[in-house]
């Protein structure tokens, strides 16, 4: 199977001139469809930067980053938006819209495509929330949910659009052991059902066992594969 994410000699640095701060150095990695890859490493090792480049949120200039057959190096805004739309994103904080209910938050992902009717969108969002165990919390606003429940809503939001790739940036950082593990297990289970690729950045060693492969990043260099 061909790689769904193919990164070749990616280098990235912050700042310019004398203050230039290299973050990623010659990173090369290929991830196949359906694979669950964990990226670990100490703070400041460039994990999140790597993830934002893959997700089309940050522009990189050196090397090659092929995501879903799109070259993201020196890409324009349209290409990045197209890639983002095919990726589900789970953030460190839940990042839900606090004025919307769980159901409305999840269906925000579907409103973008505008291919479904309102009823279909709400049905699919409700199904997805039921799948993450929140079938009885559809009309709760984020304030009325626990941290673990909120993170599960954001898992539902990332998966409801049936993305090919899910990127997760320390999804368990703000959760206790049990709810963190629950959220990641649900993510893994749902992703395996639909052959979704998951790239998960974490330094939470409690969840290493969900991964097919663990990649360690240190000072912008991949240590072992």
């Amino acid at each position, binding site marked *: 199977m061909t790689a769904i994410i193919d990164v070749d000699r990616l280098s990235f640095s912050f700042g310019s001139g004398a203050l230039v701060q290299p973050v990623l150095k010659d990173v090369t990695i290929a991830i196949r469809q359906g694979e669950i890859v964990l990226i670990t490493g100490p703070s400041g090792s460039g994990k999140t930067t790597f993830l934002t480049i893959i997700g089309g949120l940050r522009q990189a200039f050196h090397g090659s980053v092929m995501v879903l057959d799109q070259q993201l190096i020196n890409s324009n805004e349209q290409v990045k938006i197209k890639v983002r739309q095919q*990726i589900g994103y789970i953030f460190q904080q839940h990042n839900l819209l606090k*004025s919307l209910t769980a159901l409305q938050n999840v269906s925000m992902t579907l409103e*973008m495509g505008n291919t479904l009717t309102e009823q279909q969108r709400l049905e699919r969002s409700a199904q997805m929330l039921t799948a993450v165990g929140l079938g009885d919390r559809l009309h709760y606003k984020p304030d009325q949910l626990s941290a673990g429940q909120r993170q599960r809503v954001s898992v539902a939001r990332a998966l409801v659009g049936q993305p090919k790739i899910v990127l997760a940036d320390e999804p368990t950082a703000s959760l206790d052991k049990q709810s963190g593990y629950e959220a990641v297990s649900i993510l893994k289970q749902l992703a395996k059902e639909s052959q979704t690729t998951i790239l998960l950045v974490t330094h939470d060693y409690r969840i290493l066992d969900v991964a097919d492969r663990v990649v360690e990043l240190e000072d912008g260099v991949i240590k072992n594969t």
Partner: protein
Amino acid sequence: MIGWFYFPARLAWRQLVFDRTKLVAAICGVLFACVLVFMQLGFRDALYASAISAPLKLNGDLFLMHKQSEALWRPVTFKRSELMRTLGNPAVAEVYPLYLGLAPFKNIETRVKRTLMVYGFDPDSQIFSVETIRGQQAGLKLKDTVLFDEYSRPEFGPLRQLLDNGRNITEINDYKIAVIGLFKLGVSFAADGNIVTSELNFMRIFPKRNRSDIDLGIIKLYPDASIEQTQAELRLRLNEFVNVFTYEELMQYERNYWANMAPIGFIFGFGTVMGWVVGLVIVYQILFTDIANLRNEFATLKAIGYEQGYFIRVVFASAFFLAVLGFVPGCALSVGLYHLAESQIFMPMPMTLNKVTTVFVFILSMCAMAGFLAIRKLKAADPADMF
């Protein structure tokens, strides 16, 4: 595509109603601007309407006025013979002079003097299209008689009551006269009250005036004559120092005086613009802090694939909702304030559809402008910097 606007508008709406306190504050801001603009326009229109209330009631096809006359209330006189010359035109049926003067009127009860406008005219003519004047013209032929405008400010005294009690003798310009009846015309910014009287009585009230120097000439044409053509012919014939106005032109001339010559038009224009600016700043502040507070949410949406244009539409939809939500109560409140003002300044302040649309467009443009200024803040919502 309905979704193009519907989805961002729906999100904007949901975010607005989520924080009720902020929503109420924002609505109050728009409401304030709305009321401010309504009042400025209301006073201005009342001013213009009252300024032309007297010429509005004149019954003529063409009007002669000295070119140096800035407005009816401060006329420059010209020779009566100039008016009589127009009779040489075959289209002209009748001509009548009108004499105008400001004079102090003594309140019958308090004896306090206050200036009002005195109109002198030929009681045999029909130049005023006011029914109550027409019915009492015979009485004006008597010596030292006048009719008093019931719509004059109350400072002149309760004339109707006084007349019923038979107390009708007072002084105008220190000349003793008898008020023999009432009519309804309306006050203007130039004069707090009005009196009509005969030409002869006018000369008695103003001893320095004489009948050959007139303030306004009123020309009536034969029914089948063309007003424009006669106007053009008269312009060629008459002395160059007189203006020949049609009815509409006379109105326009009066209105222009108040709008441009007098500083009053500028004052109201300035007040209107200030209302716009104050509202703009309030709405801008609300939208700006909203974007700043929701930066994280916008960045999240951007990360999952929403385009910049979507957020711009969200901001403009918010601005639009604020405009509408502030305008509706603002308009209702202004109707009430118009009634209050009418009872205080004795000038008509009608809430017309025209005014409602004007102010709505005004408020809409204000909110749109605030939106334009606020969307620059959207750049701060960059997902790469947030995560």
